[in-house]
C-alpha cells in the first residue's frame, strides 16, 4: 500500500498545532482539518486516514504516539506525541526516490544563473568571492524563521541595559564640558601658514593674515581649528623629519630636527571659552533636575565637594585604618621595572604586602601597571580581594596628537600605551557602568604623570561626592573630592574630622615610639661617641644633633593648612556622609528624598569646587 505523502507532510508541518489547544490531538478533528487544507480535489475517507496513520507509525516505530495505545485505531483516539524527525526521514526517503530527476533540473538552472557565460574568467572568479552577493543568495535560500531568529538573537546580544543608557544620558546632560578645539588634518594648511607666520624665540610673533584672505577655505579653517606651524630655524634640516620630542625637546636651539608651534587664534580660544561656559551653565542647571539619581548622593547639585586633602607619609609604613573606607582607590606605584637587578623584586613584594584590602568593603581599585608588572598587578588585585574587570589603555600622544612610535620606549617593541587595571571588590550596585570606553587618548606630560582624564571617568562612575583615595600621589594629583597619600607630597592637609583625630593619634603614638627609639639610639650614640672621643678627638658633630623626625613638622603644617584655609567646622556632617557606606545608603534613596539645599551661598561653593579645576 502506498503512503499518502500529503498526510505525511501535513503531520510534519502542523505537528505542533494539532497537539495544542483546541485540537489536542483528537484524530477526528485532525482529519477534518486535513480535509479542509486539501480541499475537494483529494478527498479520502476517515478509514483511509486511520489506516495511513497506522502504516506510518508502523514504518517509523513510535513516531506517532496514541494516548491509549489500543489497536486498531479509533477516530476518538487522541494523538499525544509526534516525532517529527523520524517522519522527516521517512518523507525524505520517499521523495528522493520519486523526485530525483526534478531536483537535478533545479540544480541545473541554478548553475546557469550563478555563472554567466558572457563573463571573462577573471570576472567569474571574482563573482565566487563576492561575499555580498553570497549573502543575498543564502538569505534567499534560508528559511525565514532562521533569518528572523538570527536577527532576533543578534539584536538581543547587542542590547545594553537601560541603566547604561540612562547613566550615559545623565553624564551627557549634567557633566561639565571641557573646551574642545578640533585639529586641522590638512597638511597643506600648515605649509601655507608657515610662510605668513613670523616666529621668533620659539613663539609666534605676528601673522600676515592679509596674504590668505582670498583663500576662504583656509581662512575658515584657521578660524575654527588648531594648526601646527613648522618652526624652521637656521639649523633645521627638513630631510631629517620631525623631532621625536617635539615641544618637550631640551635642545630646542640646536636640534636639527623639525619642531612645531601650536597656532590658535585668540578669538577662537575666546569663542570656545564662552561657548563652553554657556554650555556648562546649562549642564549645572540640568544637574539640579534629578531625573536619574542612581549611584549619586542625595544632594548632588547643592553639596559642596570636599576640598583637596592629603597626607605626606611613607605608604609602606602608614596605618590605612586611619583613612576609613573609599568608593574608589587609584594606585600608581613606582614598579621596579629593571628586570636584571637581583634586589629589584624587593619593591614588588613590598607593594604586594600593602594592606590595600583594608580600604574598601566594596568598590573599585585602579592600578597603573607597566611591562612585567601587569601580571604582578593582576595577582595583587586578586590577593586584595578584587576581580579584574577592565584593562584601560592609555594611548600616549605627543604635541601633534600622534602616537609615540620612536625612541626605543620598550624592550622588544616600542610602547605607545600604558595599562590601567580596573578591579572590583564586592558587588557595588551603585556604579554607573559603560559611560566611558576603556581607552584614554591624551598627551604625555612629566615623567610618569598620568592623564587627568581618569579623574573624570571615575567621577562619572561613582558620582562627584563619593570618597576617593589616591595612593602614591604627588602634588599635581591633589584635587577637590580626593584624598591623596604619598611620600612626595608637600605637607599634610585633612578636613575630615574623624580622619584628623585618628591621624593625630597615629602621629602621637609613632612620635612617642620614635622618641623612645631615639633615646635609645641617643644613648647608644653617646656611648659610641664617648668611646670614639676617647680614641680620637676629631669627631665633632654627634649624630643626635641630626634634624628631628619630619612627622612633627607635618603636624604643624597640618594645623597651618587648616588655619590658612579658614576651615573649621563645616565639614563635620559631610565627613560622615562621605564615607562609602553612608554614600551608598543615600544612593539607594529615591530622588524625592533629596533635601532642598539650594541656598545661594552653597551654590557658589558648588561652582567653585565643582568647576574649579576644569
Amino acid at each position, binding site marked *: 500500500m502506498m503512503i499518502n505523502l500529503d498526510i505525511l507532510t501535513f503531520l510534519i508541518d502542523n505537528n505542533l498545532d494539532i497537539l495544542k489547544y483546541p485540537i489536542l490531538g483528537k484524530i477526528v478533528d485532525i482529519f477534518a482539518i486535513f480535509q479542509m487544507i486539501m480541499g475537494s480535489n483529494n478527498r479520502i475517507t476517515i478509514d483511509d486516514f486511520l489506516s495511513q496513520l497506522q502504516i506510518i507509525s508502523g514504518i517509523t516505530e513510535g513516531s506517532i504516539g496514541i494516548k491509549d495505545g489500543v489497536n486498531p485505531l479509533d477516530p476518538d483516539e487522541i494523538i499525544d506525541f509526534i516525532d517529527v524527525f523520524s517522519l522527516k526521514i521517512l518523507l525524505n526517503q520517499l521523495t528522493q526516490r520519486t523526485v530525483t530527476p526534478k531536483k537535478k533540473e533545479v540544480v541545473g538552472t541554478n548553475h546557469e544563473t550563478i555563472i554567466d557565460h558572457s563573463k571573462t574568467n577573471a570576472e567569474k572568479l571574482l563573482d565566487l568571492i563576492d561575499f555580498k552577493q553570497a549573502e543575498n543568495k543564502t538569505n534567499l535560500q534560508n528559511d525565514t524563521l532562521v533569518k528572523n531568529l538570527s536577527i532576533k538573537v543578534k539584536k538581543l546580544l547587542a542590547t545594553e541595559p537601560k541603566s547604561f543608557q540612562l547613566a550615559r544620558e545623565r553624564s551627557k546632560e549634567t*557633566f561639565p564640558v571641557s573646551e574642545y578645539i578640533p585639529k586641522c588634518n590638512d597638511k597643506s594648511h600648515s605649509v601655507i601658514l608657515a610662510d605668513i607666520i613670523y616666529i621668533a624665540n620659539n613663539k609666534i610673533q605676528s601673522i600676515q593674515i592679509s596674504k590668505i584672505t582670498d583663500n576662504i577655505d583656509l581662512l575658515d579653517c584657521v578660524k575654527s581649528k588648531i594648526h601646527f606651524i613648522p618652526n624652521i630655524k637656521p639649523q633645521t634640516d627638513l630631510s631629517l623629519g620631525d623631532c621625536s620630542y617635539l615641544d618637550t625637546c631640551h635642545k630646542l636651539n640646536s636640534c636639527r630636527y623639525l619642531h612645531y608651534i601650536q597656532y590658535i*587664534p585668540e578669538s577662537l580660544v575666546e569663542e570656545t571659552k564662552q561657548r563652553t561656559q554657556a554650555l556648562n551653565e546649562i549642564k549645572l542647571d540640568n544637574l539640579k533636575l534629578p531625573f536619574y539619581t542612581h549611584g549619586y548622593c542625595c544632594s548632588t547639585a547643592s553639596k559642596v565637594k570636599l576640598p583637596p586633602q592629603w597626607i605626606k607619609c611613607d605608604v609602606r609604613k602608614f596605618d590605612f585604618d586611619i583613612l576609613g573606607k573609599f568608593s574608589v582607590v587609584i594606585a600608581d606605584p613606582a614598579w621596579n621595572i629593571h628586570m636584571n637587578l637581583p634586589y629589584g623584586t624587593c619593591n614588588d613584594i613590598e607593594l604586594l604586602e600593602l594592606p590595600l584590602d583594608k580600604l574598601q568593603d566594596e568598590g573599585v581599585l585602579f592600578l597603573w601597571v607597566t611591562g612585567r608588572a601587569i*601580571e604582578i598587578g593582576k595577582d595583587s588585585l586578586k590577593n586584595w580581594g578584587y576581580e579584574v574587570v577592565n584593562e584601560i589603555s592609555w594611548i600616549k600622544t605627543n604635541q601633534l596628537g600622534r602616537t609615540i612610535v620612536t625612541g626605543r620606549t620598550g624592550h622588544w617593541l616600542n610602547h605607545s600605551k600604558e595599562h590601567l587595571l580596573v578591579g572590583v571588590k564586592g558587588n557595588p550596585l551603585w556604579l554607573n557602568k559603560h559611560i566611558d*570606553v*576603556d581607552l584614554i587618548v591624551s598627551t604625555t606630560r612629566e615623567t610618569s604623570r598620568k592623564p587627568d582624564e581618569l579623574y573624570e571617568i571615575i567621577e562619572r562612575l561613582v558620582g562627584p561626592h563619593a570618597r576617593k583615595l589616591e595612593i602614591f600621589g604627588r602634588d599635581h594629583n591633589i584635587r577637590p573630592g580626593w584624598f591623596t597619600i604619598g611620600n612626595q607630597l608637600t605637607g599634610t592637609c585633612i578636613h575630615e574630622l574623624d580622619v584628623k583625630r585618628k591621624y593625630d593619634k597615629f602621629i602621637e603614638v609613632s612620635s612617642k615610639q620614635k622618641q623612645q627609639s631615639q633615646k635609645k639610639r641617643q644613648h647608644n650614640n653617646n656611648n659610641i661617641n664617648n668611646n670614639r672621643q676617647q680614641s680620637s678627638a676629631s669627631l665633632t658633630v654627634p649624630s643626635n644633633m641630626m634634624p628631628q623626625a619630619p612627622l612633627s613638622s607635618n603636624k604643624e603644617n597640618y594645623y597651618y593648612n587648616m588655619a590658612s584655609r579658614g576651615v573649621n567646622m563645616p565639614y563635620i556632617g559631610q565627613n560622615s556622609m562621605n564615607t562609602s557606606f553612608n554614600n551608598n545608603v543615600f544612593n539607594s534613596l529615591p530622588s524625592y528624598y533629596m533635601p532642598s539645599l539650594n541656598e545661594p551661598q552653597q551654590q557658589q561653593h558648588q561652582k567653585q569646587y565643582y568647576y574649579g579645576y576644569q
Partner: protein
Amino acid sequence: MFSQEIYSNVKTNEPKTKRVSFRATKEFHTNNYTNHYVHNGSFPQKHVSNIENTVDGYPKLQKLFQEKERQIANYATKPFGCKVNIDQIVPTLNKWIQKDHLCFDVVMIGCLTDNQFIYPILSQLPLDRLVSKPGFLFIWASAHKINELSKLLNTEIWAKKFRRSEELVFVPIDKNSPFYPGLDQDDTSLMEKMQWHCWMCITGTVRRSTDGHLIHCNVDTDLSIETQGAQNVAVPEHLYKVAENFSTATRRLHIIPARTGWETPVKLRSGWVIMSPDIMLDNFNPKKYRGEISRIGCNVPLKNEIEVLRPKSPVQKAQQN
C-alpha cells in the same frame, strides 16, 4: 538711520576684530577627548592623527618600513592555507609534529573574535615542540580571555618555556567596525570594551643587542589602531606585520581556532601557513612546504639598508666604539 548705525558698527569693528582675532594665544591647548566622547559620541581613538601612517613625520622610519616590507616579501613562502575543523586542529598539528617533523619560529594563535577555543590548543598541544627555539608566540584574544588564559600561562611549567615579553593591543576605530568586540562577555565590565589584547611570548634565548639576524626590536609599537583598508577580513594586516617585522624567521604559522564565517573570510598571506576552518584555500602539504623553506631559507637575510636604519641598542654602539 537704523541701518546706517549697523553699517557704521560693522565698518569700525571689522578691522579691529580681525587684527585681534588672528593673534596667536600663548597657552598650549590640549583637548580632553574623554570628555568630548561623553558629550559628542566621537571615540577618543579617532583623534589620533597618525592612524593611517603611523610613522608620519619620520622619513627614516618610513624608509625602514618600506625596505623591510620589500625584504620580507622577497623571502616569503607562497601562501598556504589549511582548512581544518576546530576539533581537528590539535590532531592535525600533532601529526605535523610527530610525522612530518614540522617546526615553526613564529606561531600566532587566535584572531579578533570572542568564540575562540584557545585553551585546548595551549593545554593539549606540545607547543614547545611545534615552536622552535628561539621562537615567538603571539596569542590574540579579548582582554577577558587573556585574563582567563593567564592562569594557565602563569603556571611554572608554562612560564619557564614561554617568557611573556610584551602585551600588544589592537583598537577598532568605532562601533561599526567589524572588529568592535560588542557586548559579548561584557557583563561585569565598568567601561565599554574597545580593544583586543595579545600576549607575545619568547621561548629560548634571544638578545636584543646581539641577535640582529633573528630579531629587529623597536621597529613596531605595541599598539595598532584599525586603518580604513583593514575591513572585511577576519585578521587585520597589523597582526601579521608586527610578527613579521619583529622576527626574521620565515616559518610562520597562524592557528585560528574559531569559526569566522563567510562574512569575514580568512585570507591567505604570503609567508604564512594559516590554519582555520574558514580559510579560503586548502593547499597545504608538508612536503611542498619544506621545499619552499629550503628554497628561501629559515631567516630573511640581513640587508645593509635595513641594518643602517633600524633602531639598535646603545650597548652595541658602545661595543663598536
